[in-house]
């Protein structure tokens, strides 16, 4: 051990080090400064950035000994005298954040950039390229890049030199100061660190697990003791430190009898392929890749399905056959493929459990389904209501990967029960990028028949989802809902393989169907020589989307677009359009309470805010009723337990539409009761329940806490790209996103969501790709260098437009947007590349190697 002296945020410290530690671990664990985050552990994302003698450094790659005799500044010490740094104020005011997990790293670095810029350039404004270059060492998975550009530019201009600046989010200040406590930041005294032991091989049967030294060991396998993919949880162990726990895990004697396995989808379909699920009983244990209920389907080997969604399906097939045999001009026949996309939330799956008091179980967990998870955990562990509290106060992103009870939760709780000590279990980035779910890849064959004057005569789609060990990921069925009522047939199958499980991912199936459908429509327009917007106008029965087509066709970028395939230079510019369609969902059981507490308004229930803005939506709703500043309303969500009121899961875009009008109703009730003088109303409260909509037609489907409401939400994206035909690189220059989701509650935050969706869509279109080793099934892209997500510098100029009418039957006049906003961006980029180059990119992601081949 060595002792070093260092000064952190102006305070002198002596640190005892053994020399291997990275600065980020010591800053978080020894100094308790948890604002500095660990995300990639590889120098790529910048979340761990601190200043050392004023120079930004990545704490994950900086040896802790390098802090010797240095002045270190973390996000907690960024401001002066309790005042924030102008950059922090700018990030709050321009909403340079969503979940906030990347924010400390961004502001610590941006602060040095802004200070340097102002020294050298006064209060002129740097261009976007300069900002992106300076902050190239940072990533944001939520895609808050537009806000980040705005914030940094504003800070450089000196906008926040003196004034305080108002936070657009009620939790903005906590996020820019590092005060926000995420599950991964909870370090109870005396806690054990736990790790999950995972299968190193793709299939096998696991023998009994034992260890000489693992006094704290839980087995995580089902009764059949089978593992079906490399990375599958087998057991969990706990020890006083993470290093010891990992050593225990490595030393654990686990005997696995290897079994034959199959990784590649074509191999999985071979008649002699090893079966991933060998029996009927085993098939029943397959995880569900969708949020919705599991539709029954037939199995043939590793193929599950096809499940048809027909509308005059036989006629559709006949028309396709005829068009093909005649070589009809309007017959489109294309094959599309999409890659497996990873959520890669910046806060990994994490649970801290404290069951040291047998009468009280406390759980902190990073979940987007707090209330649901709290009930499931109580059931699973047989805890009486009132004896369990589950907290998910700040969540560093989820995107669909945190919708259910996960092994980190059950393992941490069980280990805490046995050890009678608090237990922390935080997944590593490699685990997060391997085994916590993904958007399944897909292969789609499309046949579309369009008459010479632009009628859609028939459409047949065959879709295969590459779901890994999961099942049930239909997506071509969604394609049948968009355009008109002409004959059509969609057939969805899953190909299972010994690969990590597919799970819901923001708009499950949405971007996947759109990649195939929207490019086929574009291709049809091209073949019959019609404008792609006009063709959609002819077919589309959704009047909200019709309004968006009017908006899109009037955009200068659209009217100025080049004729397809006419360019010859190195750089080719193109514009593409795609539309998106999604369901409207709501949780009718949502309850919200508004009360007077310590003389202030308090609004609460058991929902959560993963960066989507629910805290702000609630506060603004209540403030609006009482006509007080938003800052006068306290919000208490992210807690489920004895006093909790049911709150919606943040999935299916249901949260805002469920909580907004309910909060208004509760606030109005309270106001009717006590008036506006809160001084004499201490303790008064009122509660409201969301219920269904006032709608003329019955709501089609309901299951637990979820109703499918009337109407489809709609989106249209117009993307402009520049393709470097020499290097095969595509740059998205601008994107216009039009959304018909009614009135956007918390408009600026809604815009940020839409911008983030576009950025994730660009990731899907151009960069993101999980890659497995074909011989072992091991995930090779298990770090943020090889799993490539969009950077600040990849952000196009984004403009968001809302078409608001059409949702008058919904209380509050607006529905959710988290998903509809993600459907069409990637497809619009595909169409833009076609417009630019005359080459249609059908396989995702459109990497330089693919584009060069296509252009050859």
């Amino acid at each position: 051990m060595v002792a070093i002296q260092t000064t952190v945020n102006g305070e002198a410290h002596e640190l005892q080090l053994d020399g291997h530690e990275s600065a980020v671990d010591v800053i978080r664990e020894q100094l308790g400064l948890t604002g500095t985050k660990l995300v990639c552990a590889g120098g790529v994302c910048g979340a761990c950035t601190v200043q050392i003698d004023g120079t930004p450094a990545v704490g994950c790659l900086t040896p802790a000994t390098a802090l010797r005799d240095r002045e270190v500044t973390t996000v907690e010490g960024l401001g002066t005298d309790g005042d924030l740094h102008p950059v922090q104020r700018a990030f709050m005011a321009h909403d340079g954040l969503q979940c906030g997990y990347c924010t400390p790293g961004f502001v610590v670095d941006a602060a040095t950039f802004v200070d340097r810029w102002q020294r050298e350039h006064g209060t002129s404004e740097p261009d976007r390229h300069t900002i992106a270059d300076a902050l190239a060492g940072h990533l944001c998975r939520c895609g808050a890049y537009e806000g980040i550009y705005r914030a940094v530019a504003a800070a450089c201009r000196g906008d926040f030199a003196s004034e305080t600046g108002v936070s657009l989010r009620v939790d903005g200040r906590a996020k820019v100061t590092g005060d926000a406590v995420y599950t991964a930041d909870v370090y109870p005294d005396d806690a054990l660190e736990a790790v999950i032991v995972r299968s190193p091989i793709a299939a096998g049967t696991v023998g009994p697990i034992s260890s000489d030294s693992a006094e704290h060991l839980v087995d995580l396998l089902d009764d059949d003791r089978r593992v079906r993919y490399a990375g599958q949880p087998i057991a969990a162990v706990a020890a006083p430190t993470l290093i010891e726990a990992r050593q225990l895990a490595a030393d654990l004697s686990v005997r696995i009898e290897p079994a034959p396995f199959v990784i590649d989808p074509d191999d999985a379909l071979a008649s002699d392929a090893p079966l991933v699920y060998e029996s009927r009983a085993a098939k029943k244990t397959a995880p569900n890749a969708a949020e919705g209920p599991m539709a029954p389907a037939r199995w043939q080997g590793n193929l599950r399905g096809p499940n048809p969604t027909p509308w005059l399906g036989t006629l559709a097939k006949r028309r396709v056959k005829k068009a093909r045999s005649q070589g009809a001009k309007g017959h489109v026949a294309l094959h599309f493929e999409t890659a497996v996309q990873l959520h890669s939330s910046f806060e990994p799956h994490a649970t801290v459990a404290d069951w040291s008091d047998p009468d009280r179980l406390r759980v902190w967990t990073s979940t987007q389904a707090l209330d649901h998870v709290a009930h499931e955990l109580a059931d699973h562990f047989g805890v009486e209501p009132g004896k369990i509290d589950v907290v998910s106060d700040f969540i560093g992103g989820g995107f669909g990967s945190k919708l259910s009870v996960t092994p980190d939760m059950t393992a941490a709780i069980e280990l805490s029960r046995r050890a009678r000590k608090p237990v922390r279990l935080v997944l590593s980035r490699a685990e997060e990028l391997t085994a916590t779910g993904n958007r399944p890849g897909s292969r789609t064959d499309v046949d579309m028949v369009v008459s010479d004057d632009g009628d859609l005569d028939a459409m047949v789609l065959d879709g295969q989802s590459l779901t890994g060990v999961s099942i049930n990921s239909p997506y071509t069925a969604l394609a049948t809902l968009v355009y008109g009522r002409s004959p059509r047939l969609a057939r969805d199958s899953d190909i299972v393989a010994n690969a990590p499980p597919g799970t819901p991912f923001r708009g499950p199936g949405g971007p996947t169907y759109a990649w195939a459908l929207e490019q086929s429509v574009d291709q049809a327009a091209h073949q019959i020589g019609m404008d792609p917007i006009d063709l959609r106008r002819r077919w589309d029965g959704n009047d909200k989307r019709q309004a968006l087509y009017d908006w899109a066709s009037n955009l200068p970028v659209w009217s100025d677009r080049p004729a397809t395939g006419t360019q010859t230079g190195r750089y080719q510019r193109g514009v593409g359009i795609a539309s998106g369609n999604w369901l409207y969902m709501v949780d009718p059981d949502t309850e919200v309470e508004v009360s007077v507490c310590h003389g202030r308004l308090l609004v609460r229930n058991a929902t959560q805010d993963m960066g989507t803005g629910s805290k702000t939506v609630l506060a603004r709703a209540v403030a609006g009723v009482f006509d007080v500043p938003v800052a006068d309303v306290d919000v208490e969500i992210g807690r489920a337990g004895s006093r909790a009121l049911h709150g919606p899961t943040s999935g299916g875009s249901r949260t805002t539409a469920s909580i907004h009008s309910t909060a208004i109703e509760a606030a109005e009730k309270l106001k009717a009761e006590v008036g506006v003088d809160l001084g004499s109303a201490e303790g008064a409260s009122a509660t409201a329940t969301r219920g269904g909509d006032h709608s003329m037609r019955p709501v089609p489907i309901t299951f637990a806490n979820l109703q499918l409401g009337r109407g489809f939400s709609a989106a249209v994206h117009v993307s402009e790209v520049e393709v470097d035909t020499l290097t095969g690189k595509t740059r998205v220059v601008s994107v216009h996103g039009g959304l018909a989701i009614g009135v956007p509650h918390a408009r600026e935050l809604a815009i940020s969501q839409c911008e983030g969706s576009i950025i994730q869509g660009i990731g899907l279109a151009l960069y993101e790709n999980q890659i497995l080793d074909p011989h072992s099934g091991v995930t090779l892209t298990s770090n943020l260098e090889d799993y490539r997500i969009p950077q600040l510098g990849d952000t196009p100029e984004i403009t968001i437009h809302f078409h608001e009418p059409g949702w008058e039957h919904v209380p509050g006049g607006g529905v959710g947007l988290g998903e509809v906003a993600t459907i069409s961006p990637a497809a619009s980029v595909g169409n833009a590349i076609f417009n630019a180059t005359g080459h249609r990119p059908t396989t995702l992601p459109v990497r330089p190697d693919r584009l060069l081949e296509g252009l050859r």
Partner: protein
Amino acid sequence: MIQFPDSYDTIEVPAGGVVRSGGTDLQQRLRAENARPTIVDLTGVDGFAGISSSPDGVRIGGGTTMAAVAAELDASHPALAIATGSLATPQVRAYGTIAGNLTQHTRCWYYRHPEMSCFKSGGDSCPARTGRHLYGVVFDRGECVHPHPSTIAMALLCYETTLILADGSSKTMDELLGDGNDPTRDHLLADGDVIAAVHVEPGWTDERGAYFRSISRFEAEWPLVEAVVRARVDDGVIAEVALAVGGVATVPLRMTAAEAILVSSELTDETIAAAAAACTEGANPLPETGYKVDLVLATVTETLERLRAAGE
């Protein structure tokens, strides 16, 4: 265990121990492997960091940060400076060092995966060759198929470079890198050898330099292919030139055939095309790296166009 030697004489690396400069490569591997070898931390060695010039060139202390190399050699050695200033991220350049860059371990995803073993991690095969090697070599010269990681090594190939070791001995770049045939190593330093400094010949009069990397995103991404060129141009005619390409083989490659085309020529579109084409000669791509032939062409073309623009 950790040691902080304060002079080159007192450096002694125990068996199984590792030396550390900036730590930007080592710290990542220690965490991934949960490893705790003895660390010999060089940051306290007297004279380890810093650049000094003399008439026979510049001496860059092994512990000099990449940010300092990029900033201070901008005028005298533009090719080296631009290449160094374009790699990784600002934070990594601010702490990672030139010695660490030359001796960093490969970024092959198999090598870096704790569940995988290969020639470089003590195994006896190359799973990338038979598995996935999308970012692999396009000049296949040995059993290992992942390109050498060091951008700076590629740039230094264009200069007369001498590595000065802590024991006072010296090595050429060729002696550091070898021919790339030994799949078990990233470089040929013996265990315990420590790079004290890198000595680089003086820049040419009015030397110009250019660098380009082909990547899919904005920046801060490992190159698919990268190229660097330095040149002295007299009256529009190239008098002296050195060109190297990285991301293509288990060692960076000096492109002498292309240099022969360039020297005594003007930088016309035709010369650039011929030189770029010469750089692809002998390419023998793997199943997944055929695209890198196109990218060598593209990357060298862009690099030479930037060289031309640098003189305007």
